[in-house]
């Protein structure tokens, strides 16, 4: 496994969001979708904030493509990120894969080999599942994943 582009994190999954992290481990971007509302639920949770029901929420796989809604090149990180920078924080508007349905705008990083100055609002991006393996004293080797994006 190659080194991650940027720091990864220990994620505590919950009963509400576990399918998201399970899908990411399997190379997919899955989000909860409320069929009566024709809307994805972001951030992933068990209750649709539009109709306040959880009964009709199903998990759908998205294509993993999208466009940059906004971004910032951060010169230098702090805390766990103090060795990182410059790096790109962005909101990416996800393609939903469904006609007439917008994907959510999600916080993420734009990573990859292209120069950072090529990141622009509306630039097309595709997902990268950034991974590493962390050795945990109790759990042994734990694969960690985060949803990041790269310029197309």
């Amino acid at each position, binding site marked *: 496994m190659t080194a991650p582009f940027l720091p990864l994190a220990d994620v*505590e999954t919950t009963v509400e969001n576990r399918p998201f992290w399970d899908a990411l481990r399997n190379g997919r971007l899955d989000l909860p979708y409320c069929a009566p509302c024709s809307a994805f639920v972001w951030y992933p949770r068990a209750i649709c904030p539009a109709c306040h029901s959880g009964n009709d929420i199903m998990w759908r796989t998205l294509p993993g493509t999208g466009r940059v809604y906004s971004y*910032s090149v*951060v010169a230098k990180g702090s805390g766990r990120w103090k060795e990182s920078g410059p790096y790109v924080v962005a909101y990416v508007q996800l393609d939903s894969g469904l006609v007439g349905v917008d994907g959510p705008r999600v916080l993420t990083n734009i990573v990859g080999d292209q120069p950072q100055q090529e990141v622009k609002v509306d630039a097309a991006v595709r997902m990268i599942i950034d991974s590493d393996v962390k050795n945990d004293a109790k759990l042994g080797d734990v694969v960690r994943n985060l949803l990041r994006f790269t310029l197309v």
Partner: protein
Amino acid sequence: MSLRGRAFIAGAFEHPLRTIPDKTVAQVHAEVAGGALADAGLTFADVDGYFCAGDAPGFGPLSMAEYMGISPTHIDSTETGGSSYIVHVQHAAEAIAAGHCKVALITLAGLPRSSGAGIAGAGRFGNSPEVHFENHFGMSIVAGYAMAARRHMHEFGTTSEQLAEIKVAASTHAQHNPNAFLRDVVTIEEVLASRMVADPLHRLAGCVVPAGGGALVVVAPEIAKSLQRHCIPVLGTGTGVKHVDNGRIDLTHTAAVQSGPRAFAEAGVSPADIDYASIYDSFTITVLVALEDLGFCAKGEGGRFVADGALQAPFGRLPFNTDGGGLCNNHPSNRGGITQVIEAVRQLRGEAHSAVQVPDCEIALAHGTGGNLATRMGSSTLILGRSL
């Protein structure tokens, strides 16, 4: 129920120091409380309402009531970040109008590295339901505001030079405030030449974070009448909440689009009636977007509105933050809010520095933006008058 004229600000006090060695956060809360009560001509024994936010230590209002030796009949620890204290003025006016208290004390205090110690401090966010979808991407506070600035530039052509005008105006005012953390006047060129922290925001586009504090005393009309001090009537109040909205976040507006109209309607005035405005300035972009959302100009026109010294007192189109604001004067515990109200009170009393006192200042606005422009925020708008 309209709050217009139902409560008055009788006392306002800003801690004069920006470095406060050898004191605790609780101690600074109590000191500024004493300052505001003395300003009003009241004492701790008169206090029957108490308001504080996440910067207060321990159990918030319970811990601080004990520390200060007060027994309030009404307490409130609403936490909306830096706008909390403007929300508190609204809630104090509501409590007074409902007869739940007559003398409401609001306090803020911060020492470097103290933020996050209290009831709604940083530790509280660890179990937020969104935490693993937002906190692992190195999004510093400034990066969030930078993304808002970037999107505003993209949609409306706003420029870094226009954003810098806001810092220039604040610094022009701060030179007259002997207590301000930064007193040097800066130019647009100096702002743009300062280190880029999170593109497009430079180091000089962000607020200071010194030690400090402030307090307000809000009283019932009959108390105001009994005091010698010039009491400032609350004319209008409004609060608004904006969040990620199920992935549909629009970075070009704030919750001021809700709080502003509510406050103007309650006061019965319009943006054109405002003689002086304290606008929360965690970053320059925070001011620009709020000016649009409050209706001082159309959406997208903020960049042109702030150009050419429009915000500079005493004769600009809309004199703002005449104490130097959070950009230059004070922003203790990463929070303004209370300092916005204090300077508005000074202006209405005619007690601002003579170089920045707005002539015939009759109606002032204090507006707070707490939380983060890039995720979720609480906005609060307060309109105050020289008299009813």
